[in-house]
């Protein structure tokens, strides 16, 4: 495993397990940090300067489930984009359903991709693989050349 980690924001342990599994099938494997709530996610991304991640190991990709207790996914996304340190981090929004209002709102706030958590695990796994490889390996991120 090499490169910056991936941050998964999801409160459902089943989904976390399945998503981890889907990510492991990718050619581009990264350490997966899990935040069970929006607050945890923001702590990891914007926490105090002593936090190792905040400075050096900022996630290379955020997988964000919209349905969260407390601060919900939309708000987390808004804060990610409002903060200069994470403004350019790719965010893939994960949802159970494709409610058009949610999709529109996420794109308006600067989500990079939108992936439905399909009941069909094969489809989900394939979607996750494509997105993760695209954002982690193929896409050229802003900032200093690696």
């Amino acid at each position, binding site marked *: 495993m090499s490169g910056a980690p991936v941050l998964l924001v999801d409160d459902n342990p089943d989904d976390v397990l*399945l998503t981890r599994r889907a990510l492991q099938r990718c050619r581009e494997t990264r350490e997966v940090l899990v935040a069970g709530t929006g607050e945890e996610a923001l702590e990891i991304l914007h926490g105090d300067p002593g936090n190792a991640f905040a400075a050096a190991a900022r996630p290379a990709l955020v997988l964000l489930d919209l349905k969260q207790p407390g601060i919900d996914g939309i708000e987390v996304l808004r804060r990610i984009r409002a903060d200069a340190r994470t403004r350019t981090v790719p965010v893939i929004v994960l949802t*159970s359903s494709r409610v058009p209002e949610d999709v529109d709102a996420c794109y308006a706030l600067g989500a990079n991709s939108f992936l439905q958590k399909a009941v069909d695990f094969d489809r*989900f796994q394939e979607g996750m693989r494509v997105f993760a490889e695209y954002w982690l390996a193929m896409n050229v991120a802003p900032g200093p050349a690696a």
Partner: protein
Amino acid sequence: MTTSRPPAGDDARDLRERALERLRLRREHEAPRAPADALRLVHELEVHQVELEIQKAELERTRDELASSLARYTDLYDFAPVGYLSLDRDGTILSVNLYGADLLGVPRARLLGRRLGDFVPPSWRPALVSFLARTLAGSSREACELALQPEGGWERVVRIESTSSPSGLECRAAVTDVTERRVAEDALAREHLLLSEAEQVGHLGSWEWDVGLDEFRVSPEWRRIHGTSEHVLSRRALSGFAHPEDVSRVMAALEDALAGPRPYDVEHRIVRADDGRVRLVHALAFVERDAKGRPLRAVGVAQDVTDSREAERALRESEKEKRLLLEHLPIGVVAHGPDTRILYSNPKAAELLGLSASAMKGKAAVGSEWRFLRDDGSAMPAREFPVNAVLATGRPLQGLVLGICPPKSDATTWVLVQAYPELGNDGRLRQVVVVFVDVTARRREQAAVREQEERYRALFDTASDAITIHDLETGRILDANPAANRLYGWPPEELRTLRFDDLAAGEDAGSCPLAGLPGHGVLPHHRRKDGTVFPVELRTSAFDVGGRPAMAVFARDISERVEAEARLRASEDQFRRAVSEAPIPILIHDEDDRNLQVSSGWARFSGYTLDDIPTMGDWTEKAYGSRSGLEKKYIDALFSIDATVSNGEWRVTTKDGLQRTWEFQTTPLGRSPAGRRVLMSLAVDVTEKKAAEDGIRRANAGLEEAVRERTLELAEANASLAEANAELEAFVQSVSHDLRAPVRAISGFAQVLAEDFGERLSPEGTDYLGRIRAAGQRMGTLIDDLLRLSRIGRADLELSNVDLAGPCREILAELAAGSPERPVETVVPGPILVHGDDRLLRVLLENLLGNAWKFTAATRGARIEVGCEIGPEGFVDVFVRDNGAGFDPDLKGKLFRPFQRLHSADQFPGSGIGLAIVERIARRLGGSARAEGAAGAGATFHVLLPVAKEGAS
């Protein structure tokens, strides 16, 4: 003449001394005498005797001296170049010397006793008399100058100096001839006078400078110029006259001139000594030098040039003004030399000729730059150019009109040209001056006037009205147009011999003097040559023809119009009678509020005749109780209608005070002759009919009330139902979302289990795992469909006109792309226009067409047809017809229920939600859906959708 005087004391003593000496010498030779006294006496006598002897000798010598002196003086007297005369008191000549006699031109002998006055011209005689008197009165010397007229000689001028004799009776005069001196003096004086006058005339003062003495002697004019009375000046004093700013320059010039060799020549300002005025002086001097070249003397002049400089300046100014005038003259001026070359041109000339003034200078008149036109527009040959014409004839040229076609321009400028030769002092041609004025605008105006004249002439000739022009006094026809010839039937030459009266007939003849004609009117009796009489409409217009008052008469045959008017009047009468006799209420009224006519029906039903209601206000007041109420305003507004309108029922109060109901309609009748709009309001009295209808209406009213109440109840029920529905939709949304997570976990972990532990499972176990996964996925699909269905009820509608043909073709193309192996014939006509939400309509079509596609999968020669028919009012019946599996008509009612499947999932996969969605969308858009079909005979689904709205997008 001291010698002629007697001896004085000294001489007497001297004489005694000498006499005593001589006596003593004598006694030494002689014996002594007797007694002493006698001796002494003798001695005395002897001395006395000697003294006398000596005295005698002396006297003799003196006498001799005197005689010679007298002879000398007499000669002197006679031959001196001065005339000596002695005159007595009255001028008689007592003595005269020879020169004096010569002066008077008469011998001395004959002169004595004559009067000097005889030789003096009469005008001088009083001077002589007074001179003599003056001389004899005093003892001093007198002098005067007189003219003398000698006998037989030229008049002389003499100077006379005289004294009187001691006795005072005689005047002794010395006369000198001063004629020569006087002549010389006169000449000198005249020269001085001339010089002075010359200096004065030329404002030219002169001076002479003795360099050694440093003395400037200045002439009177010099003094006048400098305002001084000093005759002699020093160099220093001279410099005092120079203007302070010019002093150093003047003195430097003087030093230069002294150093030589150039003369002193300087123009400078002076300040006059007496009045301090500043003048401009030109000073010029030459220096005379001695043999060694040292300056001795300088002679110079100073001229006051203030006035001449001022005059020069004024001349220059006037030249400038003249030039300025030429530069700004709105007239072109060109001066040509005898070789036609342009010597001068002013800016206006350059402008008119289309060249800059500098470009014109030096050009010859015959250049290719200009093309000139004659007055008639033809090209002008060079020999006719103004300058050439003047050069050829030597005479001035006037009134030539010439067109200038300047280079690089096609606009012709027309000018009126004058040209004249100008001769020099030697009588030879110096230049030809060509002067020209732009007359383009005037020419254009003239052309326009001509054109207008032609136009008027054409108008005159082609006018359909007869136009005759008459001498106003005699009525004689001066001119007539062809229409006049036609109208009156006279050939042109005969018509012109007639007078206005000859054209009138009957009552009009003679009774209408031309001058008394109105500007516009109708004369019913005009006559043709053949004697027929006809009415005319006349217009007249007075004007001048060559200074004589004339009148143009425009006549139009109005026979036809008169007939038409008569017919119209008849028709009007008929209409009027039709209205007045009508048995129903009819009122004709105009926009000035006047009622023009009422029918007998109106009078019968309302009780009012036209006399009762002369105005609409009167009518509304009587019938509706107000002159300006709503009814009146409504009626006033009717004047804008352009077709018949129904006004509904009006309750009018009749003259009897009864209420009647009139149903009105109003028709516009156009305009009155005065241009006011006229309406015909026509009524049907429906009072009785209304009474019958009111009974029915009252019966209906109860029924309507019941319906209204029931409707209200239903609406309330609907509202709470809608609320419940919305809650249910939200519940479904939330539940189905939450259901997905566990289903996903079941399905997902079943797959994980299969992947990770599949090898350890028996085939049966693997089968069970597959079933768990499949069930999970079906559950997922059901949840998704349920969500979709619920969303349709919640979506916001955006309504517009939609053509369904395009989306149908797109969806069919997508389906064909998904199953390229299936040959399906599709028919989509276009356009299929409905009114609805385009997103929902697309979902509807996707489901209908997807269904048809799915259920024709097993059909050979599959065919899907889309079409539309006219539905019930306001709806389009859109249908999708296929020849697929069809359905059992008995189950038709279940077809649109959610999750209702008519076939097994093995046969045709699906959740059974599609038609429910179709039905829901149709309902949401205000329409409905139904199905026709039979098992194995295909199916046709009809959807009723609102028709496209006119004007909507």
